[in-house]
């Protein structure tokens, strides 16, 4: 391998991108193999459908409209992935993004439906609820050294059932779903800013989409350009050094979880305040959004900007899965395939370290060769 190529491969950004692409390919390949095993006849068509997503529709109008739907669901995923990413940069694993997302959904829907609040109040309520939940895990970690993964997982379930109970007060009488915003409180719907018109009158396309992209950029700036980001990352890399130079590492841990929780809460507002989905008060499993956020964060190479694309990709194939031919495959196949691909997305770091080790071995061998040659000369 020549020097230029190697140094390019050693570039962290290039490595992340390569590893992410490898993961996507591996995920699609294994998904395809599973489809082949279940029913070889439709496998190729099904995998193409998944990758195509909205392109499955013949008319350009429908394509754009359904592209809009994918974006609507990308926004909350992006927030969850930023939540995971942000905590990870400070050395914490926020598996509680799922619960913070749930409590955010509960808070914004309750504000909207029970108290008839306008959208921005509902959104702030969601952020605050997620932040409080994050603060609990953060405080437990900082002051009592309770593993944040454990406390987050428990809080995930607590928030799910708490939200089910809370939102049962504002559900439709005949169904387990919450009342629709458009019938109860249109003022709580996020403003479209004319964006809906761009997507063939897709009224779910709102302010949420550009807002979440802006938040991603803001998180990048916060981490890379500010004093706070410098402190938080230093704490994450080496809490002893952070303590040594007088940073308040306990405060930093709590603050990190507050911000991470707030991001996940905002994600919930970005979906539920569009009216795209109603909350189902009989949910007995935590919505996968928060967990997919983990995959999106890693697939995006733990970079906020990478998260934007990774979140979109994951949502793209998840939506695409819905179009798989149900006469050949059972209804769950779409979830199975997309979760397989998402699962493999988690292997980004693995591929990255594999690549690193390969390069290191090559460098070592080159060095050994150089040394051997030099040794030979001296003898």
């Amino acid at each position: 391998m020549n020097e230029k190529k190697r140094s390019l491969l050693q570039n962290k950004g290039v490595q992340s991108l390569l590893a992410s692409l490898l993961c996507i390919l591996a995920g699609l390949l294994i998904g395809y193999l599973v489809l082949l095993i279940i029913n070889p006849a439709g496998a190729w068509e099904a995998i193409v459908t998944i990758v195509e997503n909205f392109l499955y529709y013949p008319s350009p109008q429908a394509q754009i409209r359904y592209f809009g739907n994918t974006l609507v669901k990308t926004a909350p995923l992006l927030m969850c992935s930023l939540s995971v990413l942000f905590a990870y940069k400070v050395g914490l694993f926020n598996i509680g993004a799922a619960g913070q997302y749930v409590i955010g959904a509960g808070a914004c829907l309750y504000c909207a439906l029970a108290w008839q609040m306008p959208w921005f109040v509902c959104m702030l309520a969601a952020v605050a609820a997620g932040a409080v939940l994050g603060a609990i895990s953060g405080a437990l970690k900082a002051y009592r050294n309770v593993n944040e993964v454990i406390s987050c997982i428990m809080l995930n379930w607590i928030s799910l059932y708490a939200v089910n109970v809370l939102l049962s007060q504002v559900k439709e009488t005949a169904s387990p779903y919450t009342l629709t915003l458009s019938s109860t409180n249109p003022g709580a719907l996020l403003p479209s800013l004319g964006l809906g018109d761009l997507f063939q009158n897709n009224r779910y396309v709102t302010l949420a989409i550009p807002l979440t992209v802006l938040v991603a950029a803001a998180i990048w700036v916060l981490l890379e350009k500010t004093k706070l980001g410098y402190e938080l990352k230093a704490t994450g890399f080496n809490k002893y050094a952070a303590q040594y130079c007088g940073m308040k590492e306990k405060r930093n841990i709590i603050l990190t979880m507050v911000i991470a929780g707030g991001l996940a809460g905002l994600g919930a507002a970005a979906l539920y305040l569009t009216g795209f989905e109603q909350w189902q008060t009989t949910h007995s499993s935590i919505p996968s959004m928060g967990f997919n956020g983990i995959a999106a964060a890693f697939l995006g190479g733990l970079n906020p900007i990478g998260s934007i694309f990774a979140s979109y990709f994951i949502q793209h194939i998840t939506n695409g899965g819905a179009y798989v031919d149900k006469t050949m495959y059972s209804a769950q196949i779409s979830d199975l395939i997309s979760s397989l691909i998402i699962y493999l997305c988690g292997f980004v770091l693995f591929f990255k370290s594999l690549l690193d080790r390969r390069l290191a071995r090559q460098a070592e061998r080159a060095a050994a060769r150089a040394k051997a040659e030099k040794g030979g000369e001296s003898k």
Partner: protein
Amino acid sequence: MEQPYAIEMLHITKRFPGIVANDNITLRLRKGEIHALLGENGAGKSTLMSVLFGLYQPEEGAIKKDGREVRIKDPNDANDLGIGMVHQHFKLVECFTVLDNIILGVEPCRHGFLQKADARKKVLDLSEKYGLKVDPDALVEDITVGMQQRTEILKMLYRDNEILIFDEPTAVLTPQEIDELMEIMRGLAAEGKSILFISHKLNEIMEVADRCTVLRKGRYVGTVEVKDTTKEELSRMMVGRNVEFVVHKEPAVPKEVLLEVEGLTVASKLHSNNAVRNVSFSVRAGEIVCIAGIDGNGQTELVYGLTGLEPVKEGKILLKGADITRAPIRQRSTGGMSHIPEDRHKHGLVLDYTLEDNMVLQRYFEPEFVTSAGFLKRRAIRAYALRLIEQYDVRSGQGPVTIARSMSGGNQQKAIVAREIDKNPDLLVAVQPTRGLDVGAIEYIHRQIVAQRDAGKGVLLVSLELDEVMALSDRILVMYEGEIVGELDPKTTTVEEMGLYMAGAKRKGA
């Protein structure tokens, strides 16, 4: 008649990249004797024991057991040869009982079921025979350190080990427990066990050992009969005569008191005793005060207490007259204290940060480097880092953007020294600032420290290297078991005298 040798280590040489850890060392252990192995930190004691235990393979030399040459490839071979070791930090399973720990790895089984009754009988017999009082059913986490050590000894005896190695066994014991241990060791030797006793406490060696082998800087100094020698002679053999580093400096001109410590007590994380006990001293502007002592006598905890890394239990710390006993670290730092930490990887650097980000670790919050809105002034940081790199000759692959982890230890240390000195402190606390560095870097850092003193700063230097202590200090405080046992003047004292204080053989007023 000469007793036969149980173990002979002949002309052992073990090299590591850059250093010779053991250089032609010979150690002969007689049957039934207590043989002390004496040397400073880094003298090569641990390496030699690791060779005996099969953890390292020597480049040269041979090991003989009962006169026959053996090859010890790994600790299992050592165990088969009857060599057992009590490590300085016990290797016990905390949530198991004493009995379970003793039989761990050699559990008596029948048809896959544990036969604990036999094991218990054997353990109780051994315990009685050698006076090793233990409760076989107590959980290790509930028993005293002394009983944990007896459990470790029983582990060796249960395995029928003939050669017992004790690695600094008294470091964690109370004086009473030490007396008991000495008694036990004598009993074991009387029963024909051969004991290797690693220590740098002269009193204990004089009390219990038959012979003593001394190492210094990886070399064999000699083996002496303890009854024919004195503490002074052993201490001279251990530390050597010659001060090897000469630092040119003018006599100190101490001025006002900068740091005042009164009755400082700091708790220990390892055991229930306090690590620092009622320590009082002061540091003036324009002098280098050195805390000397053998590793683990409370120096680390003293510095943690001074710099705020650990809370102070009792006592008072005054910096330029202001009480900072409970002040947060940042306040001490901005109040004029700089700290070159003992462990540069743990505390001194964020290894995954770039060199420039590490250079501003103590100053990133100053208006010079951050806007009022909280944004870092990247250009100012770069310029500052470049200046420090230039001025303090910090070498790295890619300059300010080099990841600190990829730099050499010496340059990492130089970066820390640059950062802490350039902060322009009134008081510089430097802990083992030259550990693991090559001669060039050591000289450089020594010159910087003296320059700080000459610029009117106070320097508190903590060092384990006697040469460094002698070369740099204007006053020496010797720490032993958490207390300051002596204050010496480097111009009038000798390394031998200091060694006696360090080993607890002498204390002020005694």
